[in-house]
């Protein structure tokens, strides 16, 4: 006999598996900094309902030059400005220290873990898989230490086959680890990874491309000219759109927010 959604949710709650429900979590007060980690960007914070939810595993996904790293550094800078510690597990060792400093990150409060994952593993695919698992273990260690304000696993540019080989329970385990803590855990990648374990998934793409039309896999990378700004002789920055494609504590997922980046140091 087919069960209604309410029955399924009731059964899940009985077995204490309701944390994977998309609508299981109540909304948070956007002004409560113990519940959200603001990005210190008025438009984005208003759109996200205060910022990234704490105690959840959030995601920032997008293609190259979609502003993922810029947004990541903005979140980290806001966290260090609040006196929090930030950990960045940089699986591909791609962080640019100058960009981080220009974004306003207090570098002394940033724990940077440099991974060994390479973009082009060649015939040594297993090597990359081990490096990715090593980065995940480092991410787990930081979460276990606790009391970090923001913990980031940056696997953008990581080979998708290596990511797909990770067991799905990995993300569920990470979500359970971060639940109930004051830490905002964040995954940065090309495509959504955590799926139903994710607290909030923010997809970035070029402005005017219509992220929703391209779907999660489209990633909006065909209209480069629409989001990339060049001046007379200088690269000026990117204009991208951010859209929440999954949120456990939000009902409405329509709308988007436009973000601009300026090439101060880039």
């Amino acid at each position, binding site marked *: 006999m087919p069960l209604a959604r309410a029955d399924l949710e009731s059964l899940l709650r009985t077995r204490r598996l309701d944390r994977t429900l998309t609508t299981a979590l109540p909304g948070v007060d956007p002004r409560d900094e113990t519940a959200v980690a603001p990005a210190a960007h*008025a438009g984005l914070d208003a759109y996200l309902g205060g910022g990234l939810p704490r105690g959840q595993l959030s995601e920032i996904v997008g*293609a*190259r*030059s979609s*502003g993922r*790293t*810029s947004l990541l*550094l903005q979140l980290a*800078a806001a966290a260090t*400005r*609040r*006196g929090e*510690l930030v950990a960045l597990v940089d699986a*591909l*060792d*791609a*962080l640019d*220290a*100058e*960009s*981080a400093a*220009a*974004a*306003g990150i*207090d*570098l*002394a*409060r940033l*724990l*940077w*873990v*440099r*991974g060994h994952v390479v*973009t*082009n593993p060649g015939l040594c695919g297993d090597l990359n898989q081990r490096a990715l698992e*090593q980065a995940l273990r480092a991410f787990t*260690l*930081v979460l276990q*230490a*606790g*009391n*970090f304000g923001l913990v980031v696993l940056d696997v*953008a*540019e990581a080979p998708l086959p290596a990511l797909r080989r990770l067991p799905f329970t990995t993300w569920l385990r990470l979500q359970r680890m971060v639940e109930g803590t*004051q830490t905002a855990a964040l995954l940065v990648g090309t495509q959504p990874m955590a799926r139903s374990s994710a607290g909030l998934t923010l997809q970035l793409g070029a402005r005017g491309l219509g992220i929703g039309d391209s779907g999660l896999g489209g990633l909006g*990378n065909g209209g*480069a*000219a629409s989001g*990339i700004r*060049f001046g007379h002789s200088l*690269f000026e*920055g*990117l204009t991208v759109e951010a859209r929440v494609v999954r949120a456990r504590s939000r009902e409405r997922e329509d709308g988007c927010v436009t*973000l601009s*980046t*300026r*090439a*101060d*140091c*880039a």
Partner: protein
Amino acid sequence: MSPLTPNSQSPITTNPQSPTPNPQLYACLYRPPGREENSACSAGSALDVVAIAGEFSPRYECHGADLVSIDVSGLGRLLGPPQAIGDELRREAAARGVRAHIAVAATRMAALVLAIARPGLVVVPRGGEAAALAPISIGVLEKVVVDDDGMQNPQNAQKHGDQHNPASVAVAAFTRWGLKTLGELAALPPPDLAARMGTRALVWQAIARGDDVRPLVPTLAEERFEATLDLEWPIEELEPLSFVLTRLLEPLSTRLERRDRGAAVLHVLLRLVTRDPAGDGGREVCARRLELPTPMRDVRTLRTLALLDLEAHPPGAGIDRVTIVIDPTPGRVLQHTLFARAVPTPERLSTLVARLGALMGQDRFGAPARVDSYRPGAFAMEAFRVEHSASVSQPASVASVAQSPIPNPQSPLVSALRRCRHPVPARVAVAADRPVRVTTDRRGFAGGTVIRCAGPWRTSGDWWAGGPGGSGGSGGSKEISSVSSTHPTYLTHLTHPTVPASWDRDEWDVALSDGAVYRVFRDRATDSWYVDAIVD
């Protein structure tokens, strides 16, 4: 009793009229400088004064190396009257070859001043302290320095210059007033004295009267924190060793807590089951030394750190004896607040750092730091501090402050780069001195037609430091991040080698048809192109 209101009628100063069941009695030993000692004893004579004190009472206080005050209350039942106690002290000092001034009085301050001012043995009858001190020259106050915390230490008087020594200033003022002895100072009306010289002058007057301004604070001998366990059967693996470490560390942690101490250095000594190479009965010992970043005494943290260190440096044979030695240091005093966000404790961060070091390697984590170089992508790694305040800290460098103001919430984000640590070799088609197509053989960097571009910007450097280094792109074999940097960690010190590679390149920002913006450069030395970074 407050030092600001000295009261000669205080119970501490032994009113002769008040019947006290266990009257206070103090003795002071002072070894004056410049005395020639027996050559056999001269080396240890400084310690002998303390040793003599320890022979008579556990309650003694050291004021430097040559002055010690002893609480000899109650010794009367064992040795007799104060004169007998003094004689016994003098006998003990003579037996040790120490010529010391000895004074016995009902107040510690009277005994201390008399020991400094009078040679031989002086015993003051109870209640006669002020009279005994009265004829002493007022200059003795310069040798009895009273710090803000009430400590008396004649050595401090010598370290301070006369101009800055409060005692010298006070004595100079008293001398100008015509005062020559402590008795004359003691006779001054306290309100008038305080009105002219401040409340601190009352402390000098209390000393002149022989009143105690604070109780004796016993000096505790340095305790050695060491524990050893002999095993019936040798341990081959680290897992059973963790139980042994826990058993050894738990009582040590308790002792540290009782003494308000934390571990500064943890020594793990493992006696190995090996053949005796020298044949003298000695066995090989695996000794590990962990310098802890912050005083700690948490058993789990210490055990984890020791085990992680032993995982990285495993002993070469089975272990039949485990010894733990801890170098103590004063414990941390923490004041938490309800209004600041908690940060990880130093113990947790130390454990995290040790675990990350075991997992990733010591040079693969830390805090990034900028370097004074124009080399693209240059950075340094610093050890991640394990002590952070919950409050907002200032960025380390002034440059960081200048370049990272608190942003306007409406302002755009800073465009960031994703660096390719090993620049990706690229094929670039150029037309009219501008790149028009960028392709690579690297999977994931397919490239495409250049839609827009900006450049070139020529940058070069370190050409004075050595030969051509391929400007970071010659084969991609050198990390351009490897600018000379020191990476201190709490266990070891690793230093990256300096890479004297010059660079000379023309950089372009190109937007390709794949929708991404790249930073590419042409190495002018080899005329080859590389993808250096992705604008993201």
